[in-house]
């Protein structure tokens, strides 16, 4: 079950804070290249891995050395799933802004911002909860 490596739970929270700021700037300025960059960040976290994800690298370089080490670990699978959810919203948002469908861009960005903000401010991972709900409603083969 824990095939994916565990991570320091403060890393994703830091990443969520950066994501919140980035998405807030996108909403205010409507500057879609920034949202495109955030889409790439989400994609790396979701499809490549959390370690090479830009905000995790930033966390390890800038933040982690200033904090006391923790033995607390969190499973990476739901976090990566959450990044994938973020990726979808950011992608839809980017396409919306870039193609002139600004409303689509704004709405998609707002959803992604809502999730990132909940994670940063309350340590509540909306995408992770969604992962559980999805699993609950996905019947697995070989289950009695």
């Amino acid at each position, binding site marked *: 079950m824990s095939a994916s490596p565990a991570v320091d739970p403060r890393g994703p929270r830091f990443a969520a804070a950066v994501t919140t700021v980035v998405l*807030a700037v996108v909403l*205010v300025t409507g500057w879609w290249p920034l949202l495109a960059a955030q889409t790439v960040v989400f994609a790396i976290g979701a499809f490549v891995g959390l370690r090479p994800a830009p905000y995790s690298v930033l966390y390890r370089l800038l933040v982690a050395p200033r904090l006391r080490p923790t033995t607390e670990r969190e499973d990476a699978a739901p976090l990566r799933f959450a990044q994938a959810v973020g990726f979808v919203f950011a992608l839809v948002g980017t396409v919306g802004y870039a193609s002139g469908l600004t409303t689509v861009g704004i709405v998609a960005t707002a959803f992604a911002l*809502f999730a990132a903000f909940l994670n940063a401010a*309350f340590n*509540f991972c909306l995408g992770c909860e969604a992962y559980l709900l999805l699993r*609950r409603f996905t019947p697995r083969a070989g289950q009695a």
Partner: protein
Amino acid sequence: MTGLWVLVATLVAGLVAGGVLAARNGRIRGSGRAGQTPRTLPGPVVEALDPAASVTLVQLSTTFCAPCRQARTVLAGLAERTEGLHHVELDVTNRPQVAQELGVLRTPTTLALGRAGEELLRVSGVPRSGELLAALEPHLG
């Protein structure tokens, strides 16, 4: 300008949602299913009951749940310090029907069950050990 208003609205919605979630965390609820007989409890829960303990805390967890680990630490410590209190963690990742039968939507949720399997109370989120102990006191011993 629209973007700015959407930003403000989204942050306010986030604050409200986060506040509601934080308020619910660790809240102790009396049993809404008073009188439920052990017969209607799902099999894995019945098996988890410790006949030697006055109260068994059955913690429903899933593999992908960070607060479940915190809840485990709190409850295992409490059970160790408290006579007559037993703690079992039940992983329902691959058997969601157990959670469904108990009416549990989120993990961690902890059920406090009496010797006969009657539900005394339940806690969703990470329990606060002092508060939980106070609520369990009448049933212990």
